[in-house]
């Protein structure tokens, strides 16, 4: 649905997005992740034809340029803050963009906005504005939806409702590109992760692959952990002792099992460690910064 190929974006003479390429297939939910100032919003704005760029952007096989937005006819977006006219009611804000009234009514109902949709938007709370912004982005059954920090200001119920809605639209074939600082929330919906730092893509993987590669440590409990440690030391297998278990690397798990068996030491537990998604991202970014500092 969306193909971004070799794009460079400049502010003045400074290149702020460097050779970025990725794809968002129909029905995929791609998380665009990275620290502040990494270039997430700039990439989103570039896809929407709002900045000058070098490279190619295709939406449904149609080219997007700064001056040609025909391909964006079926694209919904929420960038930075909800684009809402405060002097209009929520409904009037939706009517300004809606091509299908039935779809509009359905969205307001699903997002539980009926109680305030006919009041002026200037009186809305942050969460109400955010929901309206999301509703505007989802109008007219879009092929591609770009959401920048969609969960900002939403309470738990609204967050769950938006998450369900995103999944529902994705099941119907809508492609999503979503950025969020709430990684744990993003983790629940996305099926592809694009990690960006200093305008460059560091990782572009399916979440399954990302989890497999990133979660390489295992937790090991034996009937006698001090004895197990001696065996591992003897075999020069690296491990990290914790309170009542050992942390070992995925690549060593079969050797460890063989050695323990040879030494008649019983294994009680061997499980992949559930690494926190946020921690993994932070670790990767730290490694990247280390590399950059070394250069």
């Amino acid at each position: 649905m969306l193909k971004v190929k070799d794009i460079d974006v400049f502010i003045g003479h400074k290149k702020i997005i460097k050779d970025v390429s990725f794809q968002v297939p129909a029905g995929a939910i791609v998380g665009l992740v990275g620290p502040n100032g990494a270039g997430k919003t700039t990439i989103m704005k570039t896809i929407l034809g709002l900045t000058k760029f070098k490279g190619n952007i295709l939406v449904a096989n149609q080219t997007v340029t700064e001056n040609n937005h025909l391909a964006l006819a079926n694209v919904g977006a929420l960038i930075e803050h909800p684009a809402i006219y405060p002097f209009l009611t929520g409904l009037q804000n939706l009517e300004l963009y809606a091509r299908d009234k039935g779809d509009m009514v359905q969205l307001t109902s699903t997002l539980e906005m009926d109680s305030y949709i006919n009041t002026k938007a200037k009186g809305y709370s942050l969460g109400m504005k955010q929901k309206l912004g999301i509703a505007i982005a989802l109008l007219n059954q879009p092929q591609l939806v770009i959401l920048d920090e969609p969960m900002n200001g939403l309470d738990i119920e609204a967050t769950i409702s938006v998450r369900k809605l995103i999944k529902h639209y994705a099941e119907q074939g809508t492609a999503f590109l979503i950025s969020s600082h709430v990684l744990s929330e993003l983790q629940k919906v996305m099926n592809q992760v694009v990690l960006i730092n200093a305008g460059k893509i560091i990782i572009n993987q399916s979440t399954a692959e990302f989890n497999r590669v990133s979660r390489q440590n295992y937790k090991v409990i034996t009937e006698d952990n001090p004895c197990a440690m001696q065996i591992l030391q003897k075999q020069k297998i690296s491990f990290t002792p914790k309170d009542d278990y050992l942390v070992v690397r995925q690549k060593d798990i079969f050797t460890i099992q063989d050695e323990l068996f040879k030494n008649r030491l019983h294994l009680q537990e061997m499980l992949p460690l559930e690494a926190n998604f946020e921690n993994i991202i932070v670790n990767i970014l730290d490694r990247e910064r280390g590399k950059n500092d070394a250069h």
Partner: protein
Amino acid sequence: MRTSLKEEIFKFYHQKIALYGLVTMLLLMIYSVLTKNITKSMLAVGFGSIEWIPIILIAVGSAFFAMEYTNNTIIMLMYKHSSKIKIYLAKFLVVVIYGLILTVVAILFTLVLKLLLVPGEFSWSANFQEHALWVDLLLNMAGVVIYSLFIVGLSFMLIMLVKVNAVVICVGLSLAFFGASFSSGLMTALPSLIGLTKWNPLSLIFISQQLTRSSISLKSNLTDVQLVVATIIYSIFFAVLGYYLFKHRRV
């Protein structure tokens, strides 16, 4: 273009700033009635409305454009439309049409006020200055309509340049209150350069009265035709410059 125009009219109508502008003009006309004696001269200038309309237009025009950036709606506006010129033109047209409406309402309200306050005095067909009084009123208002093009172009250009609505309004007020005297002062101070300085844009404000009072050409140093043509050329210049700034402004 039709879609852009429909959207802009919808927003302009609901923003209420148009209504506030209209009410302000009517209140200022009433203020003129209450604080000054009613004379033929006052009737010819629509109870001061020829001065107030440009100020209202500069404030309304800049607020109408600035709100797109304040509310972040400029992103939607830009990505939903390929043509930036259509967005700009639609906004320009809406404000110019609003200026026309203000002018028509000012004429009607002048008629009503005269009818209510001095019904037996100052016949509209009586001569005043060089024409019948009603011709004076219409010519002055025609001058305001032409000057409105310049004011809308200027307000759009300024809001793209300085990005602060209050500054644009201050410039509008300065133009209205000091533009004419500053322009005259400039020409008096540099008599040798009058061939050049008479074309300064501050002179254009004379258009709102010179069409009925040829004596004002002594201040502007421009003929009626020169004044009209200069106003239109400056209007186009500022509108084009404003569009260029709009097109290249980062969102």
